[in-house]
């Protein structure tokens, strides 16, 4: 016959099994709290009459709770309320449409990005007016050397008036000009222009 711990255990005889003690553990707190259901309360009381160690534990739990009452409370500082109100005022709750507005920094960054995009899109692209590059887009080979040479005359080539030969050729004033040079010299001049 086994006896419980301490002198009290010997008075009640056989020690309960660890399994029985474990089954009471989850009920003991509620029992000591006075919140155990009737069935639980009965089970705990029945176990405590036969288990010295659990009985000792229950007694010491009560003493522990009494000792824990000795823990003093602290008081919030006198500035607690004022400090809280300052924090509330510093971060007001967004209401209505304003809750959808981004933070100022983010808004500035977005505006700057949009402005940059608009400016970049408004800059005329050289590729659209450059015949050699347009030809390359049509599938022709465009060696790098030819591109660099073409870019040298890009300023002149991009001038719309020089490209509009129809207008120049139909200009009546040209008829009063002296007789143009011979075909061979004019052909050389034309090649130079191109």
């Amino acid at each position: 016959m086994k006896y419980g711990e301490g002198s009290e255990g010997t008075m009640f005889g056989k020690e309960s099994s660890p399994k029985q003690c474990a089954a009471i553990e989850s009920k003991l707190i509620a029992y000591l709290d006075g919140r155990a259901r009737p069935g639980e309360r009965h089970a705990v009381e029945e176990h405590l009459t036969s288990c010295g160690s659990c009985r000792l534990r229950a007694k010491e739990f009560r003493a522990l709770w009494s000792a824990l009452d000795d823990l003093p409370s602290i008081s919030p500082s006198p500035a607690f309320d004022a400090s809280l109100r300052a924090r509330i005022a510093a971060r007001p709750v967004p209401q209505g449409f304003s809750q959808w507005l981004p933070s100022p920094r983010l808004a500035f960054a977005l505006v700057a990005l949009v402005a940059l995009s608009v400016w970049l899109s408004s800059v005329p692209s050289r590729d659209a007016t450059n015949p050699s590059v347009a030809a390359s887009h049509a599938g022709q080979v465009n060696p790098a050397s030819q591109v660099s040479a073409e870019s040298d005359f890009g300023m002149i080539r991009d001038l719309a008036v020089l490209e509009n030969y129809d207008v120049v050729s139909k200009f009546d004033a040209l008829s009063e000009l002296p007789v143009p040079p011979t075909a061979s010299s004019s052909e050389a001049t034309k090649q130079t222009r191109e």
Partner: protein
Amino acid sequence: MARTDVQLMLDVKAGDEESFALLLRRYRAPLVNFLYRMVRDTAVAEDLAQEVFLRVYRARQEYAPSAKFTTWMFRIATNLALNSMRDSRHRKMEISMDQTTDTGEDDQRPLEVPDRAPSVEQELVRRCRAEMILKAIHALPEKQRAAVLLHKYQELDYDEIASVLECSESALKSLLFRAYETLRVELAPLVTPTVRVDRVPVSRSGRPA
């Protein structure tokens, strides 16, 4: 008759600032104490308590009385405390071994020594007990610590505490049992009844009278 927490919170939702002030007065001290006993730092505890009220205030428009106000409030407080302690652990890992770590004694005020010795002794005993209890509670795993504080000092119901800690009631009761079992051992000098020794009166010669 005093308004309930739910009534006050619904009034805050309706724009009544005075109701928020009443809630603040009602829960300011319990919240600061709970957080102090969790983190053992008065400044951090006050900062976290203010953060709790700030979040309650900011969420007032979405407030719905689906749970008790204390459950909601202490859930915020517990999560903030756990996050704070986690961040504190990371910071302490970066502190050199030579530096003194926080032992939670930041709130100890210099002891004034009055003329009467027994008062000093009583004060010392009181402080010693309080420090023992605080140290033992702080040594508990964080979830057990929160469970003990909410159960013992805030007197929340089991279902409330379980909701705060996001566990079942049976898991909570096991948690509490393990926590109190640990405290029972750690605080044995305060818990175990002292052994009384019956003194046998003796004569001057040393033989029993």
